[in-house]
């Protein structure tokens, strides 16, 4: 009986852990979109790991490191005050977010379509893959 209770407990804990992982990653996805659209570089950069790697899918490294991400997006956010990203569709797994995004650089401009995959490790975005850009 004791064994059964322990087993049930472990099972329950692992199920709730998994559910927690999915919730966490959905929150990260939401925060990423909000920080991007408010062009808040501090809030945006805080979601990425220090050694974040950004690739063109599958393996072409574009740049590496949070400092480079801050340099790029800091300038981009400043230069593009009307920037807006609309999430057309989002797929979640326990450690990945795949976004279909429509990005507008200027009000009334034609949206540019992107498909981007974010890989999350320890609650931070560790890898970004541009699947379409």
């Amino acid at each position: 009986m004791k064994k059964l209770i322990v087993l049930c407990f472990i099972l329950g804990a692992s199920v709730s852990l998994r559910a927690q992982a999915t919730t966490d990653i959905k929150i990260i996805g939401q925060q990423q979109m909000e920080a991007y659209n408010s062009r808040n570089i501090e809030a945006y950069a805080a979601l990425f790991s220090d050694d974040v790697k950004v690739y063109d899918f599958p393996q072409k490294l574009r740049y590496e490191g949070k400092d480079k991400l801050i340099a790029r997006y800091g300038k981009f956010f400043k230069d593009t005050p009307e920037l807006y990203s609309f999430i057309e569709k989002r797929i979640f797994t326990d450690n990945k977010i795949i976004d279909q995004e429509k990005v507008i650089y200027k009000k009334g401009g034609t949206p540019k379509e992107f498909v981007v995959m974010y890989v999350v490790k320890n609650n931070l975005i560790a890898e970004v893959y541009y699947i379409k850009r």
Partner: protein
Amino acid sequence: MKKLIIVLCATVSCMMATAQEYNKAALVVQEQIVAYNARNLDAFAALYSDDIIIYKASGEVSLQGKAQLKELFGTFFKNNPDLYCYIEDRIVLGDTVIDHEKIQLQKGRPFMEFIAMYKVKDGKIAEVHFLKSPY
């Protein structure tokens, strides 16, 4: 008679509009899932190009060429008569389809989670990249 022609024209243009609303790549991928669930190897293989390449989530090549696809999926379909796949979610962009798939090998077993990206060329699946798989 004039009315009939107008109705015919309207019907034809309506049908054309409907046909254009389907993304061709998504249609091929959907047919592929139907063939997969029916374990119909011929129908399944017919939707892939001769030089199909399937990549694992690690980036390694999983299989290459239609002959190998037929061999591997032939065995897989035979060994898993209860095989079932459903699409949880899908992103479509031009010739690229990304599917969030749930696959069950046997009735009553848990569904496994996959994300597959299909690239369609000339009406056939030319590349598959798994972005997520349980193994």
